[in-house]
C-alpha cells in the first residue's frame, strides 16, 4: 500500500491482508503437485483455480484496505504475488502438457477467468486497475497501434524477404550475400539502428521532399517500422529458404522428369511441402515483431512501448506494467495461434 501512485508503499503480508484465506491458493498449489503425481486430467485445473482465487482474494483485500483512504492512495500487488502467479502458471502449463492437453487451452482458461473477475469488478481496487481506468483510452489506442505497427513491420519484412528468399534459393552466391547482409543487421543493437535511421531518413527526406509530402517522417513510426522489418527479414528469409528446400529432392527430380515446369514445381511441390517450415519462421518473426515494436516507443512510434517508457520516466511501476503485460500477452497469443497453424500444416503435409 502506498500513499500515491509514485511513492514506494509499505508492504502488507498476505495473512494480514487476507486473513486465513491467504493459505488457500498455496494449498491448491500443493494439491496440484499431488494431483500431478496421480496423472489426473484435472490436475491443471488446480493451479488455475489457485491463480483465480489469489486474484479475487487480493482484489477484495485491496478494496478493504482502500476504504477510508484518500483517493491518491494505491494498493499494488507485491513481489510475492507475482512469484506465485508465475509458479502457478508454470505448473498449470506443465500439467496440461502432461495430461495431453494443449498448453494454450490452460492459458486461455486463465485469461478468461481473469477477464471474468475484471468484469465483476473484483479487481477494481488494485492499483493496476486504477491506473488503467485513468488511462483507459490511451491504453486501448496503444494496443491497437502496437498491433498495427507489428503487422505493418511483418508485412514490410515479408515484402523484402519473399523476393530475397527466391533469389537466394536460385543462386548460392546470392544466398551467401543476402545471408551476410541480413545477419549483419542482427548484430547492430536495436537502439543504435533506431538512432541511425533517424538521420538517414531525414537526409533522404531532405533530398526527396515529395516523400515528406506523402506523410513520411524522420521520427515516429517510419524509422521504427524500417528497423523492425530489418530485424524480421532474417528469420523470415531463413524460413523461406528452408521451406523451399524442404521438399524431398527425389520428389522434385521426379516432378521435373514428369515434365513439370520450374514454376509448377515450386507451386505444386516446393511450396506445399515447405509451408510448415515457413509457418515456423513466421511465428518467430511475429513474436519478435511484437517485442521489437515496443522499442519503437522510444523514437515516438507510439504503441504499448510508449506506455512502458513513459512509466519508466515517471518511476510509475503500474504504468510500466500496463504497457508490458499486454505486450507479453500479445506475444504469447501470437505464438500460440501460429504454433497451432504450424502443427496443422505439418500434419496435413504428412
Amino acid at each position, binding site marked *: 500500500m502506498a500513499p500515491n501512485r509514485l511513492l514506494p508503499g509499505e508492504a502488507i503480508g498476505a495473512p494480514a491482508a487476507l486473513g486465513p484465506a491467504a493459505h488457500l491458493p498455496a494449498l491448491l498449489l500443493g494439491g496440484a503437485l499431488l494431483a500431478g503425481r496421480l496423472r489426473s486430467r484435472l490436475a491443471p485445473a488446480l493451479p488455475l483455480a489457485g491463480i483465480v482465487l489469489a486474484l479475487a482474494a487480493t482484489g477484495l483485500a485491496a478494496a478493504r484496505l482502500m476504504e477510508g483512504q484518500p483517493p491518491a492512495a494505491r494498493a499494488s500487488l507485491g513481489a510475492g504475488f507475482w512469484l506465485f502467479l508465475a509458479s502457478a502458471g508454470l505448473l498449470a502449463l506443465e500439467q496440461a502438457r502432461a495430461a495431453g492437453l494443449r498448453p494454450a487451452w490452460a492459458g486461455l482458461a486463465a485469461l478468461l477467468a481473469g477477464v471474468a473477475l475484471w468484469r465483476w469488478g473484483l479487481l477494481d481496487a488494485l492499483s493496476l486497475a486504477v491506473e488503467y481506468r485513468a488511462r483507459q483510452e490511451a491504453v486501448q489506442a496503444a494496443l491497437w497501434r502496437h498491433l498495427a505497427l507489428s503487422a505493418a513491420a511483418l508485412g514490410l519484412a515479408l515484402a523484402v524477404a519473399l523476393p530475397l528468399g527466391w533469389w537466394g534459393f536460385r543462386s548460392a552466391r546470392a544466398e551467401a550475400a543476402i545471408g551476410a547482409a541480413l545477419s549483419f543487421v542482427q548484430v547492430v543493437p536495436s537502439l543504435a539502428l533506431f538512432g541511425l535511421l533517424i538521420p538517414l531518413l531525414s537526409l533522404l527526406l531532405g533530398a526527396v521532399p515529395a516523400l515528406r509530402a506523402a506523410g513520411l517522417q524522420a521520427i515516429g513510426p517510419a524509422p521504427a517500422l524500417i528497423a523492425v522489418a530489418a530485424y524480421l527479414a532474417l528469420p523470415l528469409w531463413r524460413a523461406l529458404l528452408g521451406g523451399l528446400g524442404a521438399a*524431398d529432392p527425389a520428389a522434385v527430380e*521426379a516432378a521435373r522428369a514428369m515434365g513439370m515446369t520450374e514454376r509448377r514445381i515450386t507451386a505444386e511441390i516446393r511450396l506445399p511441402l515447405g509451408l510448415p517450415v515457413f509457418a515456423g519462421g513466421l511465428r518467430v518473426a511475429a513474436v519478435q515483431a511484437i517485442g521489437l515494436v515496443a522499442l519503437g516507443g522510444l523514437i515516438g512510434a507510439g504503441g504499448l512501448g510508449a506506455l512502458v517508457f513513459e512509466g519508466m520516466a515517471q518511476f510509475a511501476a503500474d504504468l510500466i506494467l500496463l504497457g508490458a503485460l499486454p505486450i507479453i500477452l500479445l506475444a504469447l497469443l501470437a505464438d500460440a495461434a501460429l504454433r497451432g497453424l504450424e502443427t496443422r500444416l505439418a500434419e*496435413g503435409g504428412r
Partner: protein
Amino acid sequence: MIAFEGVSVVFGGVRALEGVTLSVGRGALCVLVGPSGSGKSTLLRLVNRLVTPSAGVVRVRGEDVAALDPARLRRSIGYAIQSVGLFPHRTVAQNIATVPRLLGWPRARIAARVEELMALLRLDPALAGRLPAALSGGQAQRVGLARALAADPDILLMDEPFGAVDPIIRRGLRAELQRIHRETGKTILLVTHDPGEALELATHLVVLREGRLVAEGAPLALTEPPVHPFLRALLGDGELGLRRLDLLPVGTAAAGAPPPGAPSIAASASLRAALSLMVETRSAALAVLSEEGAPLGAVTLQAILERRA
C-alpha cells in the same frame, strides 16, 4: 527409337560420358549395366533432357531432343527411379495422375486411367485415396511405375526401379515389368547394377565402363565364350556359366530318347534348372516334356556342356 550419336557429357570438368554411340530399337528392353560411376544413369537422363550433352546428338523418335521443348518431351516419356520420389502431400491416385493432369486430360478419363493402372500393377483400389507414407516399399515402387506409365508413353526410362525393395518383391516386380513389356511393346531403357537382373530382363544389353560403351548386344551373344575379362567379372559374379544356362530353355537342347525312369522336366524350364535337377537326382539325363506333358526327347549332361547359342 532412341539414338545417341557420339555423345559426351562433362560435369564440372569430370567426363561422365565419352563418345557414346548407341541405337535402341522400337520395342527393345535395353538394359544399361556397369560399375558405379560408369555413366549409365547419365546416359538414361540424356533421353529426357535432364542432362544436356556437351557434344553429340541425342535423338528420340528421330528428332534431336535439343530442338524439343523439355517439358513436353518429358511428358511423352515415362520415368521411374529407385527413390521413387512420390509426392508426399498427394494421394496415390493424384500421384499416378500427374502426367495426364499436366497434359490436360478430362477428369473422367484420368480417373478411368488411374483405375486401369492400379489394376495393371495389382494395387489394391482402396489405396487410391491414401498418402504415400501409408505404402510399403513394394507398393510405393508399383505406384511409381504406374505414375511413369500413366499417359501411356511409348518410351519408359527406369533408373534402378527395383533397387529399394527386398529380393522376393523384386522378383515379382521384374516379372511384372516383363509382362508389361510383352503386352504393350514399349521401348524401355533400364539402368541396373544387378547383373542377374540385367541378363534376365534385357533384349539388348549395353555395358558401360568409365563413360565409354564397351559392349552391346543380346545377353546370349555377350556371354558367348570367350568372354572379355571385364564382362566376365561384371556379369559373371563367378557363375557366368550358370547365368548363361539360365537364358537357354531346355527345349533347345532336347534330342534322342531318355533312359527309362529318368526324371522329367518341362521344355520351357531353363538349362540351369535342368542341371540343378540332375545334381539333385544324380542322373545324367532328363526326360523333356511339352506343356501338355507329351515327351519331346532327352536332355543330357553332355548336351548341356556342348550347348552353344
